[in-house]
């Protein structure tokens, strides 16, 4: 019989995996469209890292469920209400390179902090996956942070454009620290940690780079998006899934 703890662990793993997968799918949009060849390659590499991280957590979720579901099931055969990713990652990337870098930076800083904590999880698999993922995330943050500074402290146009991206993304940042009874149960059992306690540290990391980039965090934000934790998404996720899931849904026997 599935214990309450197991159910919570599955939900927790799916959140991390969904977040990495949807973010990866968005970033992969740059493949073949990068502003320069090196960044095209960089985006494909980052996307690949994130897909790899998602696979690890999906595989663990499937082992916990123990009913023969594969990682592909979670990625390709669930609808948008089943996905637990944060709304920020599903926002379309292919409009402005600075937007992608700002998004990668905000998410990466948070993922760095959460994986650092999860390395101490008493769940051996989660701790292993976190110790693997944190190295890759650290590299992504370094890369994205450099671009935020370069664009923010660059030309008048690059400054304006990345400030606009920052303003558009800021209302999605509160969701990083949202948690519910799943987290509470896992925190109580020593498998996960309190996300709310990461907020001050995340803000300090973000401020350090934003200041260097001569950018400003909007002080008049009164509205913050929310919903991913309950599977309530923006309109963009449905379109993303339609494209990503088309082939395995149309040809269920296809193998690759």
């Amino acid at each position, binding site marked *: 019989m599935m214990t309450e703890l197991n159910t919570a662990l599955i939900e927790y793993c799916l959140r991390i995996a969904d977040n990495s997968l949807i973010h990866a799918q968005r970033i992969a949009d740059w493949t073949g469209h990068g502003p320069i060849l090196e960044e095209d390659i960089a985006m494909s*590499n980052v996307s690949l890292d994130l897909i790899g991280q998602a696979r690890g957590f999906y595989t663990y979720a499937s082992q916990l469920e123990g009913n023969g579901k594969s990682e592909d099931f979670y990625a390709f055969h669930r609808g948008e209400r089943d996905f637990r990713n944060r709304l920020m990652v599903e926002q379309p990337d292919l409009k402005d390179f600075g937007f992608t870098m700002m998004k990668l930076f905000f998410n990466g800083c948070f993922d760095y902090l959460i994986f650092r904590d999860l390395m101490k999880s008493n769940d*051996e698999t989660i701790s*292993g996956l976190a110790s693997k993922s944190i*190295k890759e995330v650290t590299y992504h*943050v370094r890369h994205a942070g450099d671009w935020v500074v370069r664009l923010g402290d660059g030309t008048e146009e690059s400054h304006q454009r990345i400030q606009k991206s920052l303003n558009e993304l800021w209302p999605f940042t509160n969701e990083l620290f949202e948690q519910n009874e799943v987290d509470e149960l896992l925190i109580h059992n020593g498998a996960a940690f309190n996300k709310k306690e990461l907020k001050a540290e995340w803000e300090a*990391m973000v401020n350090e780079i934003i200041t260097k980039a001569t950018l400003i965090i909007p002080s008049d934000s009164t509205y913050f998006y929310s919903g991913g934790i309950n599977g309530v998404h923006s309109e963009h996720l449905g379109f993303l899934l339609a494209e990503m899931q088309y082939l395995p849904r149309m040809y269920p026997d296809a193998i690759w």
Partner: protein
Amino acid sequence: MVKLDVGEIWDLLNTIPDPEVPAISIVELGVVRDVRISDNVVEVDITPTYSGCPALKNMEDQVRAKLLLAGMTPKIRTIYKPAWTTDWMSEGTKEKLRVYGIAPPEKVSFENLHPFANNDKGPVACPFCRSFDTILTSRFGSTACKALHFCNSCCQPFEQFKCH
């Protein structure tokens, strides 16, 4: 068929080249973590270099094929902890990379573990002319494990195995 012992299996796996950097073996790369034998079953623990490394499946297939050909039953397990690090490469392995034209990774420092830490260890030595007059042109290269550099001395672009 003669049964192989653990040491001989390590030797056998050491003949499998890294599919992306064939100058070194998957054992030298540090991907093979443990080998255990019980009866005719050989259990091999392997760990990915990067989470999304597309070569991992190929490495698994090669390990399986080698063991089957040797008359053993392979059982392969993917492990994540401890996380793979380039520090597991020996000096000899690093020299093989350099001769192959890839600048070897430096030792991972504690500072590398934080995204904003000053990890500037100065320029990487060119694997061709050994000059330090080089620049990093891109953090990401042709595979997940490499970055791109350029040597001002011999005017050659070169790859570096990232310090990870």
